[in-house]
Structure formats: C-alpha cells, structure tokens
C-alpha cells in the first residue's frame, strides 16, 4: 500500500460490480463505497492512472506517490527545505542554532520524519586572514549533529560551535529522505566581533605599521570606538611630551572582525588578546619610530594616567633561549630584542 494511499477517482464513472450496471459519482465527486454484494467481483470501468494500482476503491497510489490535490493522478510528494540561523552572526568561540524546516509544498504542512544532512564550510581568506591556507588548513568550527530527523513541527536543529577565528561560514543542508525539491540549500553566518572599525590615518599623531607586504595580515588596525578614543589620548600625550621625536608606531590591533589573531598565519594562538578591538601593540625596539628606552618611564606614566595598561613583551625564551626580561629585554648574550613592544590594553582591562 502506498504511504499516502487514497482512492483515485476515475473519469466520469465509478467502478462497477460485475452483475450491476455502473454507479455514478456521489455529490462530492467520490465513488460510492461497499456497493458490491458478497460473491460479486469488482470490475473497473477504466484502468488506474500511472503509479497507481487497483487496490481499494478504486485505485491506490504506489509508494512514494500520493494523489494530487484533484485526486485524479498520482504524483511524487513535494517537500521544500529552509534554513534559519539564530543569531545571524555569532562571536568567535560562541555557538549558534541552525534550524532546518521541511514542509510539504502540496499541503503547506510541516513534514515529520525527514532526514536532513548538513555540513559547514568556511571562506578561507575571510575575516582579514588573507594568508588563507598557505600555512595550514583552516578550521571550520563544529556542527552537531551531522544529520537529524524532522520533528512533528517539521524542524530539526543543529548547533554550530564557532571557531576562535572570525570569518564567513556557510552551511549546506539537504533532505536525504525523501528528497526535497530545493536540494541542497545554503545559508551563511558571520563569525565576528561587532563594532570594530579601522584606526583613521593621522600621521601627525601615529604611524600604522605591521600590515606590509609579506605579512600574513594586511588589515591589522581595528578597534572599538572607546579604545580609539583612549589611543588618541595616549598618542597626543606622548607627542606633547616628545614633540621632536617620532610619533607612536602602531602595530597589530585587531583584525576587521576581531577573533584570534594568528600572526604566523597558522590558525593557532599567536597574539594573546588582540581579539576584541581593545588591545594594540606599539613598537618599542631599536627599529625606526620605536618608543626609545629612555622614554619608557614617562610613556608608562601617561598610559597609567589614562587608565591604560602597558605591558612590555619580548621574544619568548622558548624561541631564542636568551632569558629576555622587560623592560630592556636584552638577551644573555647582550643582544637587543628586535621584537620588544608595548602590549597596550587601551581600556585598562584584559580582553
């Protein structure tokens, strides 16, 4: 029997018992039921349509066919799939709900028991990571479960666990059983920290560095508005104290959508913080434009006055085994640290 077995109305006449004449349709257009006496056999005035068998009165659709709305032919059931993402964007390391819904396009009713499969992909250069997969494959986050079955309301939910890295992710879903008419379907989500914008150029106050050719990220100066205000206060104070010295040279802040800032381009933790637009590195080594060692004391003082937290970072001992320690970061062999910089928490707190 067909899953959606139903009578199929044939032409203008109904089936007949072999000893009686044909019977007309009733006022609703259906053939009368139980019209034959015992020992008489059913005959049909016409044959069943395609994908139907003469079982019942008079025809039943073959599985998985169902009667069309006029009940004159058997058609394949029509389903359509839709995806809803809530929220439409998600912060790094947080999760979002993806809801797939299947409806019967013939009836408009939700369809229970449909198996839906889903997978997630990522735009490998999105979120400011122009290096793409040059160093390592990019993680896509997690999606649980990989397949699910629709409930009575026609929905099935999946949980997307966003990675630490910001970027554009897409979901591809399809009804595996039965087939939907719009298979497969895709939807996008942005993994991002909202509210960041780039530091406007102002050569009289600071120079933006670190996004040069050859670097893994070229757009590295995004901050929140509050952090930008603090940065300007720091830069003006510094320039006021040292009007004849180079202005602050600003290195990595955050990427355009925040998230993990993997300065080596390998998708692994690189910078601590630098994820939410409130932290920026300021050059403080021997390179051009660096805050010179003699200015460190007053630089730190003006930072403290503005409730800005200024740490000095050097090259890790695990990399060069030189035991470099702030403030000078001079190695055991007397060498200067080319990586020495101020790690500035503009809002005075860690991200």
């Amino acid at each position, binding site marked *: 029997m067909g899953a959606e077995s139903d009578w199929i109305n044939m032409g203008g006449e109904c089936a007949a018992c072999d000893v009686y004449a044909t019977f007309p349709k009733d006022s609703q257009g259906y053939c009368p039921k139980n019209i034959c006496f015992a020992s008489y056999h059913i005959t049909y005035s016409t044959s069943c349509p395609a994908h139907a068998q003469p079982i019942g009165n008079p025809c039943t659709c073959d599985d998985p066919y169902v009667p069309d709305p006029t009940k004159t032919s058997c058609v394949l059931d029509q389903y359509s799939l839709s995806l809803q993402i809530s929220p439409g964007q998600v912060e790094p390391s947080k999760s979002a709900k993806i809801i797939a819904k299947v409806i019967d396009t013939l009836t408009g009713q939700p369809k229970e028991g449909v198996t839906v499969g889903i997978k997630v992909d990522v735009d490998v250069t999105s979120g400011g990571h122009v290096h793409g997969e040059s*160093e390592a494959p990019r993680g896509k986050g997690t999606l649980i479960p990989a397949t699910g079955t629709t409930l009575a309301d026609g929905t099935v939910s999946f949980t997307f666990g966003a990675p630490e890295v910001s970027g554009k992710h897409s979901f591809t879903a399809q009804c595996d059983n039965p087939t939907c008419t719009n298979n497969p379907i895709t939807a996008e989500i942005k993994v991002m920290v909202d509210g960041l914008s780039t530091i406007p150029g102002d050569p009289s106050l600071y120079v933006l560095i670190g996004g040069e050719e050859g670097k893994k990220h070229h757009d590295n100066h995004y901050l929140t508005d509050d952090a930008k205000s603090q940065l300007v206060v720091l830069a003006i104070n510094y320039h006021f104290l040292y009007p004849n010295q180079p202005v602050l040279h600003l290195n990595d802040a955050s990427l355009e959508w925040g998230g993990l800032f993997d300065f080596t381009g390998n998708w*692994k933790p690189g910078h601590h913080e630098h994820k939410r637009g409130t932290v920026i590195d300021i050059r403080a080594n021997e390179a051009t434009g660096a805050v010179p060692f003699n200015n460190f004391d007053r630089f730190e003082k003006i930072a403290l006055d503005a409730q800005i937290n*200024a*740490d*000095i970072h050097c090259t890790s001992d695990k990399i060069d085994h030189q035991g470099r320690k702030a*403030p000078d970061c001079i190695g055991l062999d007397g060498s200067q640290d080319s990586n020495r910089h101020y790690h500035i928490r503009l809002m005075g707190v860690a991200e």
Partner: protein
Amino acid sequence: MKTAILYTTLLTVVLAFLVMPSLAAAVPGEGIVFDSASGNYNITYWEEVSDDTGHDLSGLSKATFEPATKIDPVISSSIKMDENKQMVYRYKLSNGMKSKQMLVRFVFDLTGNINASRPLLKPISGTPPDKQSILADLIAGVQALDTPSGWDGAAVPNFSGLRISWSYLRTNFDITQGVKPGASQSGFGFSSQDLPGIGIAQLQGNVKVYGLQFSGEGVDPGSDIGKQALQLVKNNFVPHSAAVPTIAVPTPFDPAVLLERIQTHMHTWIGMKLLDATFSSQLDSYFQSAISAYRLNQPQVGKKQIQTMLALINKEHTDLGRDEEHESDKTHEKNDDRKSVLIDRLAARVLDFDLKYVTKRMGGDKDD
C-alpha cells in the same frame, strides 16, 4: 659548588610551595606563589608559543612579579577655604621607616571636580575625540595642579571621572629614586569648588616595571593563572584615605540640599570602617532636624543642630582644624590625640569642615 647552589635554590622553591598557599592552579604545574622572603610572587604558567614556521614550542614558563606595595605611606591632608570660597586641598606624603621601596606615585580617582582653566570632569564617550580639546585638557590638567619639583602632575579625564596623578620623574627605571623611607614630600595640591569627602589614594613604591614582566606574550589573560596575575597588577598599590573634592555645593546655595549630600557621603564611611553605625544614627537625627529647619526657613534652629553635631565630633578628636600638611612628622605623632572608636580623625576633620562651611554660608560662625 654549582650543585650546592642548585640544591639551595630548589629547596627554597620547594619550601615556598609548601608554606605559601597557591592562589590558583589550572594546567598541572601552573601556580602563583608568594615568596615571603622577597615579598615577590613567583608565577609558573603555561606559555602557548610557536615559532615562525608554526612549530609548537608551548610549555611551562616562569616569571616574577614584584609588587610596588613594599611601602608604608602616610598622607596628610589639609583643607582650607580661600577668600573666593574655593576649597584649597594640600597633601604631604611620608614614606615610613619600614618601607623597602622609594615612594614614587600618588593617584586619586575623583568623581568630584577640581578648578582648571577648562572643565575637566566630563563624560568621555566612544565618539572620536577632538584632538584640540584633548590637548587643551592635558595642558589645563597640568596647570591646575600644584606639583613639587622633580615630580610630574596630571589631571586626566577618563570614563569614570578624573584621575589626578603625581609621579616622581624617574629616569631609566632607576629604583633608587623617589621619597626615601623616613622622608616626606609636600607641595601636592589643587583647588576645587567641591567640599571634601573621603577618597582613597593609591600609592606606589619604585619598582622597575609596574605590570607583569614575561618573556614572549606571557600568560594567557583568559586562563585562571592569567586572571590571578592581572588581579595582582590591578591591586598593585597601597591604599590610603585622604580628603578629596567629593560634595558639590548646590547653586543657588541651598543648605538643606547640601546637608543631605554631606549626610549621604557620611554614610559611606560606615562601610569604610571610619564611622561607627550607632554614632552615625545619632548624627542622622541632628542632620534631619537641621534639614527640616532650613526647609521651614528657620536658619537659627538649623544652625543650632549643626553646632550640636560639631560639639559631638570635637568631643571625639581635638584640634580638628589643625593644618597637618605643614607639621613635621614628629609634631604629627606627638599631636596624635586619643583614638576615637566612633569616628576616624580624618573623617571627623572632613565633617567638621563641611558642617562649618554650611554655617559660614548661612551667615557666619558667630553665635546669635
């Protein structure tokens, strides 16, 4: 010889771990341990690091945090009203003999205002700041302060109010500079339209670096150890109470409203352990009577209530109007009167000043 030194070092570390409570532990081996011999914190943390080729070099690392709190400071506050009815605040810092560090930094976070050529206390928002006005604030802030020579003063507006700071003009991280143990430094001050309340000053000793010093990117601030370490930095000062501009005088002058503000501020002293709750309730009844009297336009009745309060306060401490900024430390010690359990001496001086201000504005101190 080398072996012996290594053994001693190891033993010290082991003893420190045994004696000192570990403040936090996350990854096995991580921890922050206070070393009572040096007064420093030894931090062992997981350092996540990879080289330029992406090769993972992560492992445990060590760092030391030297707190800037090895000082025993005293702040002497002096408040006067000048002929223009402006409050003149003066401070003297003394570094106690027990201090192990030079005193080099003195900070207030104010919610009251100070007098400057342009208003400094104002809300700072996220809108991109106007450079000229930041520069003007900076100059006005420096000019608004009295700063002793060899020190740098600044009054900087921020998100929560106004930060006043004086820093010794140290050079090259030289930790021998600053106010030496047993010495003092006067000459800090400003004027304000606001009446004094009690604020908490932050004082710091001279250490090479005020933050954490690590090799590399250091401890992950999001880890348990990282959070504990940042807490050490956040509390890296010795708090000391001082008289600071706190209570705005209403314009036009309204004694009832001002008394309410004084009373509200006074209540915060109970939590600061500067005022006994029962004594506070006793004062409250006089506050209420005075406020009602001024509201009913009975200034003489109001004044009587204030005078009763003044008498109560002066019974607890003698010589409240004394100028402590210009006394030598010896005189200060000698004159230190009996300790009241009901109200702290500085609190009593502030309340005495504020209540007398109300009576002065209402027609003088003379009895009628």
